[in-house]
Structures are given as C-alpha cells and as structure tokens.
C-alpha cells in the first residue's frame, strides 16, 4: 500500500515536472459556444480550452483537444480513445457510476430560451408544447423530467436553436452560458429569441471526466485547476468569455 502510494507520488512528481510535460488528450464536442467551439481558424477554442491550457501550464501537462460528437463521447472514453473529456460535462450521479470527475471548474444552470413573442414565463407554461435540447445533455433530462412537455433531441444545440428560430419547436433548454450567447449575442437570433427563465433546480457543476480509476490524469488536472483558482486566473478567463466573473 505504502509502496503503491510512493510510486504514485513519484509518478505524479515526475509527470508534473515541466521538463517531462505529459500530453493529455481531451475529447470535446466543440459545438457548445462559448464553452468550447471551433473558431473561424478551424481551431477548437473557448472558455474550457483556455482553462485547461492555464491548468496545463500550472501542473505541467500539454492539453490536446480532439473534436468528438457528443452522443458517443462517453463511449470513447470508456474505450480509451482519449484521456479525458472536457466538454461542459455536468457531474451527475449516473455519470459518476461509469467515470471519475475532477474538481468542478464551473457552475451553471439550465436556461429556457423561447421566441420573443411567446408569452410563456417558464417551462410550466409550455404544457403540450415541444422543447428541444441536445441529445442526453442535462437540458434534455430537464425537459424529459417536466410533465406534459414533449422533448425533441438534436445532435447539436445549434440545430435546436435553428429549429426554434424556424418555428418548429417552442423552446430550447440548455446551459445558461450557451443560452446567453445564442439568445443575446448571435446576430440572427438576438432579435427573435429571449431567455424566458432559469429553470429552478440545484446548480450544476462542470467537471473533467476521466476513465474510472485513472488517478494519474485526474490528479494532474486537479492540481492544475487548483493552481489556476489560487492565482485567480479562472476569474480572468470567465471575464474574457462571459463578460462577468461569476
């Protein structure tokens, strides 16, 4: 036991030294602006990417991002195709059964976006209507949990917003940073859509997911995230992408 501990510590110490920078491959579904998305230069960028790069600098690992479609992202982790998932994954009990999570790096809630002309105040007013969400996101779960509301799942949240804009569905539920970007900032949508409400529920916490038992990677990431928080770098990154520091 002691031997194992020493060995792990030695490993961590080794990998943590800047001379032996380890590469951690993060899978990300880069369709979730502003958290992670592909920019005009075809590079995966966003808040989470900046955060992992800062964490990497602190803990001595090189983050590498790999674009993966959301509905197969957890299967790929289980199959060992990449080391970790950094893709706005909310820590849930179900997910904890199949993977391990880092310390939370962000707090979000579910926002309901509806057309500007809609009179609905929140999700209860949309009984009998269809709400869209990205497949098996916590937003999708929230819609499914609400009685009397039909759910429609999409591969990407952007497709859901386009369908909302085109009037095929009556609302979209997604994480609030994403909702704010689509409903308040995107040129096409900001005149037609609005955020109706934040769906009352507990705060959701984003974590980086790793394969169950992959302590080495997890410790590295946690170490980096702790250093980033200690130095207050996370506030800067939040401010850069969201405009506010909380």
């Amino acid at each position: 036991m002691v031997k194992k501990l020493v060995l792990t510590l030695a490993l961590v110490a080794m990998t943590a030294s800047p001379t032996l920078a380890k590469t951690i491959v993060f899978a990300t579904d880069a369709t979730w602006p502003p958290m992670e998305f592909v920019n005009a230069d075809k590079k995966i960028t966003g808040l989470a990417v900046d955060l992992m790069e800062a964490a990497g600098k602190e803990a001595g690992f090189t983050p590498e991002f790999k674009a993966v479609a959301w509905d197969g992202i957890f299967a790929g982790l289980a199959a060992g195709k990449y080391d970790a998932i950094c893709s706005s994954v909310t820590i849930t009990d179900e997910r904890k059964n199949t993977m391990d999570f880092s310390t939370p790096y962000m707090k979000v809630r579910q926002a309901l976006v509806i057309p500007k002309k809609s009179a609905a105040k929140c999700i209860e007013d949309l009984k009998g209507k269809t709400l869209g969400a990205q497949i098996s996101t916590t937003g999708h779960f929230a819609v499914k949990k609400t009685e009397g509301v039909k759910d429609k799942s999409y591969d990407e949240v952007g497709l859901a917003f386009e369908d909302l804009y085109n009037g095929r569905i009556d609302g979209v539920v997604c994480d609030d940073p994403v909702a704010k970007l689509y409903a308040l900032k995107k040129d096409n949508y900001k005149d037609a859509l609005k955020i109706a409400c934040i769906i009352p529920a507990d705060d959701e916490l984003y974590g980086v997911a790793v394969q169950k038992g992959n302590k080495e990677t997890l410790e590295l990431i946690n170490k980096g995230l702790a250093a980033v928080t200690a130095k207050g770098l996370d506030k800067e990154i939040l401010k850069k992408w969201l405009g506010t520091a909380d």
Partner: protein
Amino acid sequence: MKQQGKCVVEETQPIVIDVGDGAAIPKPSDKGLVSAWWLSFIGALVTLGCLLYFKPNPYWRIFKFIPDGILVTFQVTVSAIALALVIGLITGLGRISRNKYINLVASTYVEVVRGVPLLVQLFYIYYALGRVVHVPDLLAAVISMSVCYGAYMGEVFRAGITAIAVGQTEAARSLGFTRSQTMYYVILPQAWRTILPPVGNEFIALLKDTSLVSILGVADLLRRGREFASESFLYFETFTMVAVVYLIITLILSKLVSFMEERLSHHVKR
C-alpha cells in the same frame, strides 16, 4: 450513399446489370440467396428472442423504448416512397418526353439531386424549408427523402419504359392510339413488371436511409436508440438491438417484394 447502375440493351440480347444497395431480393432461381434469406431471418429472430429472454436487462428495456421509433421509421418510409413514386413517374416521363423544355427540367433535376449526397440534401431541404415555410419536422423529412429518391425512381421508370420493345409503340400507334394512350394503356402496364424489382430495391434502400433523418431530430428508430444509449451508456447493447430490428424489417420487406414480383410475372418464363 447510393450506387446504382442499370443498363438494359433491348432487342439483340437483354443484358441487365443491376447493382443496388438495397437488400438482395430473393428469386426462386437463386438457391443460394433463398437459403441465405432464411438463415439471416431465423438467425435474427433467434438472436432477438435469446437477447430478450436471457438478458431482459437491458435488452427488454431497450425493446420497450424503441417501438415509437419503429413507427416513425415506417411513417417516413411509406410516405416518402409514395411521394417518390409520383415524383419518379413524372420525372421518368419527363426524361423521355419529346418536349425539349420538359425534358431539360426533368434531366436537370435528376443531375442535381444525384450529385448531392442525401445527408447534405436532408440538412439543406430541412433547414432551407424551415426558413421559408413552416412545415412540421416529419413532413420536412418526408419531402427531403422523396425529392432525393424521386430522382433515382425517375431513372428506374425511364429505364423500365425504354426497355419495352419499340414494336409495341409502333403497333399501338398504327392501331390509332394517341401517344399518351399508348403510354398509359400499352407501355406502362408492361413496364411495371420490369420496374417493380428495382423499385422494391429502392424501397428497402430508402427504409435504411431513413436512419439519416435522425440527424434532423426526427425521433426514428436510430434516434431512439441513440437517446437510450447516450443516457444509459449501453452503446453496444443498444446498437445490437437497433441493428437486429432493422435487419428483421428489411428481410420481411425483401421477401414481400420477391413475392409480389412472382405474382406479377407468373406468366413469364425466366
């Protein structure tokens, strides 16, 4: 997505090269295919039965989750094929029309549609349609599928019609039939027999291609499977189930088509 070549040289000797991506339709003369059909069918049924009986968790849960998806898959397939048959007939007739403009329009339609992948067409028509008119998602999916398959169907109709010997037209015309009467009373009833096997193939290919509408958020069989898998993390189990269900449906359909084909051509020695 689709590869289909058909070449019919009439009169001297009939050469038919028919390569479709639909399920092989069993013919009585093809003994290997017939037993392969039975093998796959019974194999699929036994697999399904065993999975449900011996491992009710998770297979029974999956099985209960997907039936509405199967229904949607059927709805899309049947409506799309009906619409595609109409578009195909019009296109096929347009392609052999002597009117220069009609011919040009039909031919351009076929060229354009065959040059764009079905997946791209689905996205395009679905979201383009959305900007202009408000159609429900299921209808938009059906329209997209039938616009694509209408072009392929048009080629099938054209090939079927041109495969009827010229002598038939000449005989009908000399008996005083007008051109359209010749087409409707003499040529089309005969062409139907040639057309049916490839149409059956298209039907099965279309059923399989409806899995593509799942990207539009239409809750078909594949979409239901994906929803189940990404929530339960049972990817292998779910897609086993989805594949077996698709296989059983296409096998039943291919048998039906082969049965219809036999009924229609019982007086023709092959």
